[in-house]
């Protein structure tokens, strides 16, 4: 039997709310899926779209961004930029053939350890249903590439032999 699919989820959590929420989940011994890799950032607004795209390109099956509730941002309004980037990114990745549901934005305050754990679990469930992304497989050329390269070398060798 094949190994069950263990999704790789990258979660960017903001320092002031969501990371503290995951801390709370830890101290309160709330269980959540082990497939999530948490990266602490100072603000959800620090998450450049290139972080998300890099995660997908390097093998993530899903990416979660979590920050303070709108209006509660430690840096006043940066999480509103996150809303816009998230909308923009979902629109873009859909056109690239990545299911937009592989990217999720969650608001979790420092008191919402339980809610964050539930959000992680529900996101992992959703990504498990979508299956592996395995993005770098899209870059493979099919088999005749190397064969064709060798053929060119061979053809040129012949051409050079007939040279006086």
């Amino acid at each position, binding site marked *: 039997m094949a190994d069950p699919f263990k999704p790789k989820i990258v979660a960017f959590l903001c320092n002031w709310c969501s990371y503290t929420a995951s801390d709370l989940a830890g101290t309160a011994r709330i269980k959540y899926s082990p497939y999530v890799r948490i990266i602490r950032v100072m603000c959800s607004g620090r998450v*450049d*779209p*290139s972080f*998300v*795209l*890099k995660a*997908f*390109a390097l093998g993530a099956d899903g990416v979660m961004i979590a920050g303070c509730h*709108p209006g509660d941002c430690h840096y006043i309004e940066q999480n*509103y*930029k996150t*809303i*816009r*980037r998230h*909308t*923009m*990114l979902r*629109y*873009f990745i859909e*056109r*690239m*053939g*990545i299911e937009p549901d592989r990217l999720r934005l969650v608001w979790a305050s420092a008191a919402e350890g339980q809610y964050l754990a539930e959000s992680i679990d529900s996101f992992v469930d959703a990504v498990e249903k979508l299956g592996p992304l395995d*993005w770098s*497989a*899209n*870059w493979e*050329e*099919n088999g*005749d*590439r190397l064969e*064709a*390269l060798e*053929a*060119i*070398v061979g*053809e*040129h060798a012949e*051409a*050079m032999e007939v*040279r006086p």
Partner: protein
Amino acid sequence: MSEAAKGKLALYWAASCGGCEIAVLAINEKILDVAALFDIVFWPVAVDAKVRDVENMPDGSIDVCLFNGGIRTSEQEYMAQLLRRKSKVLVAFGSCAHEGCIPGLANGNNRRQIFDTAYRDTPSTINPDGVEPKHHTEMPEGALYLPVFYDTVRTLDQTVAVDYSLPGCPPEADRIWDALTAIVESKLPPPGTVIGVDTTVCEECPRTRNEKKIKKFYRTWEIVPDEETCLLEQGLLCCGIATRAGCGARCPRVNSPCIGCYGPNQGVQDYGARMMTALASVIDSNDPEEIDRIIREGIPDPVGSFYRFSLAHSQLRRSKLVGQSVK
């Protein structure tokens, strides 16, 4: 410089339009200086030298190779490998070699889809027998070979090691001359450098800039922008905010938005991601539904708008590969 000390220069093109070849001539009479400083040993557009001549050269015997075009076929990959081996300095010349450029936009499709369009679906195509290019065809006279057409366009630096990149579609004459002078005077920057200016097109743009708040994006044919104010503020998708300077903001100066041919600024990995970041900062709404509407109405083609010149070099490189590929 004496005749014996002349350097050896090669120029080659792969998947490109030929504009870069013309751009070399845009340095005008300085082309005579180039001829005085270098022997041009290989330049299929202008000089009669064959691939086998290059194959017979000792490795590392070409001083500089300016390589334009992306890698789309096996033949282009072979030439990239050959010229890498024969050249001391390999320069990715122009946007196609550097970032994939317009040919790289085909990474939104694969070989099957491209062949279907080119050899079957266009209204002007009459091809009842379904003839399309094949790598290997047996004929009574013997086997015939064509280069293999790849599913994905790759940039030169995704194919072989590249020493320098010269961005632009095509590179501006002044930048080409800067690069050639630097090579001749041995004042080259560290390998891996993108030869250009480390700032954005906005720095070179003479337009007045205020705080940007955008409620609606316009396509270029929808409005006639005024000639004084920042084009982005007027709702046109001007890519100057994310694009490396070096062109002198040519397009904004003639009332046309920057389309990003110089690629990302120094330190930026993914051009489109930088565009998305920048635009997310200027959209004047905090309501997800309204934001979605503004983006979808104003930017109907996000891949082509954000990665017009850099899809092949972006972090995702291509869209999801779908369907069966053609043998």
